[in-house]
């Protein structure tokens, strides 16, 4: 039985539906006089963030607190990590303090998986390097389902820096599980090697795919991860792969524009697009809290986790 959420690929279609349905119920808590549920009272969640993040860390913190869990924020800056403590020693310290869940963000892909060797509680991946960010994919799926009513058969275009994007990886896996059709668009230099094997299509021509899609997801150009020249200039990138008002006009009437944030206005997305009615950027943030509450509840709320069950575990029983 899996206790962790490391990859969007660990979730079955039923798991995805369960998380999204649970999140939809939990979203109502935000509009009640008492915005708190007693469900995780006495449990401790640790936010272990080795990389800067405002949105994801506070989102997890709010989610855990709404479920009455105690939250400890542990950032690499100002901790023993700055004094040279290893990941393992940090993990063992958290384990000794009795953390029931460790929510981890790290610049190195695979860190959450490493942590599972040392931590008895649940490990939740809040973004590891260029690998995955499963709760972002869940909140994106939630937002699509809220706006468009379904996931199955949706045509989703993910545009930009796919190479460095853990958001793109998690979204491709999750959306494929949920039955959506994903097309990745970007300059060849920003599409990863082996992308042909992903459960998605690829294109280099944004204008060709926009009129036939339901969702456009713009990715942030991650300057901080770029150690080479991936495109000639910001202006050229913006002209070919940026979403401006003219391109937005070619979208079908119902199509929505998403962005995981933080946005580079004027680079991958024009300000007028980011602020338009089609944009779901602020909804995505609000939905993030509900979805993370659902994940925390389903992983920690019961005697055993309700999502991400390993098939072989069932065979052992049989």
């Amino acid at each position, binding site marked *: 039985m899996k206790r962790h959420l490391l990859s969007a690929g660990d979730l079955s279609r039923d798991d995805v539906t369960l998380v999204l349905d649970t999140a939809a119920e939990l979203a109502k808590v935000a509009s009640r006089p*008492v915005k708190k549920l007693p469900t995780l009272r006495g449990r401790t969640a640790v936010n272990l963030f080795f990389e800067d993040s405002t949105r994801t860390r506070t989102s997890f913190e709010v989610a855990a607190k709404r479920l009455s869990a105690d939250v400890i924020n542990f950032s690499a800056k100002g901790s023993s990590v700055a004094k040279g403590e290893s990941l393992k020693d940090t993990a063992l310290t958290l384990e000794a303090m009795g953390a029931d869940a460790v929510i981890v963000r790290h610049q190195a892909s695979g860190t959450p998986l490493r942590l599972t060797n040392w931590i008895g509680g649940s490990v939740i991946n809040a973004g590891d390097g260029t690998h995955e960010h499963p709760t972002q994919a869940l909140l994106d799926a939630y937002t699509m389902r809220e706006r468009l009513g379904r996931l199955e058969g949706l045509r989703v275009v993910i545009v930009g820096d796919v190479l460095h994007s853990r958001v793109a990886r998690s979204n491709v896996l999750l959306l494929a599980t949920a039955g959506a059709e994903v097309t990745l668009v970007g300059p060849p230099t920003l599409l990863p090697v082996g992308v042909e094997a992903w459960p998605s299509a690829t294109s280099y021509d944004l204008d060709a795919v926009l009129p036939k899609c339901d969702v456009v997801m713009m990715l942030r150009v991650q300057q901080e991860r770029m150690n080479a020249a991936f495109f000639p200039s910001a202006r050229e990138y913006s002209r070919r792969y940026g979403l401006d008002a003219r391109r937005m006009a070619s979208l079908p009437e119902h199509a929505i524009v998403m962005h995981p944030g933080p946005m580079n206005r004027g680079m991958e997305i024009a300000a007028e697009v980011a602020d338009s009615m089609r944009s779901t950027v602020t909804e995505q943030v609000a939905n993030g809290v509900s979805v993370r509450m659902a994940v925390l509840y389903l992983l920690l709320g019961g005697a055993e*986790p*309700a999502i991400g069950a390993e098939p072989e575990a069932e065979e052992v029983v049989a």
Partner: protein
Amino acid sequence: MSLPAPESSGARSVLEPADIGRALTRIAHEILERTRGGADVVLLGIPTRGVDLARRLGARIGEVEGREVPVGSLDPTMYRDDLRLRPARALEHTEVPPGGVDGKLVVLVDDVLFSGRTVRAALTALEDLGRPRAVQLAVLVDRGHRELPIRPDYIGKNLPTARAETVRVLLTERDGRDVVLIEHAGEDGR
């Protein structure tokens, strides 16, 4: 509509459709009597079948008084004391009627009253939604074996049972027919 699962050989019917109908009509009248016309009554069903019963009671009260009674649902899952004993379960719908519950007389409606733990959880959940003037409890079947000091105000039928027996309520809305069954199944801790 999905057909109910075939009854196991030991299943015995204790309430027929007409009995259920009569019990609900009586409860509707009792609610009106006890609340002097039910002016501030809000019916909150506990999912899943308590919600169906609350809707039926609401319709009956409406027929008698010629006035709509607010009907909603209250899922107490997140407030249960046995959450850690079982796998995390899916949440049901919570829907508070537009008028809210502040200052109202809330009647909680459930199909079977057993240990009382679900009602205990529902009372705590209700606390977080507002402050009703009073809370009452209506159940179709009271099967005994209470584990908490909880007592229903309106009862469709008192049904003496053994702990090992299971009481199943089937309702047309969900199961295609109305019937209450007693089965000698394994322990079902409701």
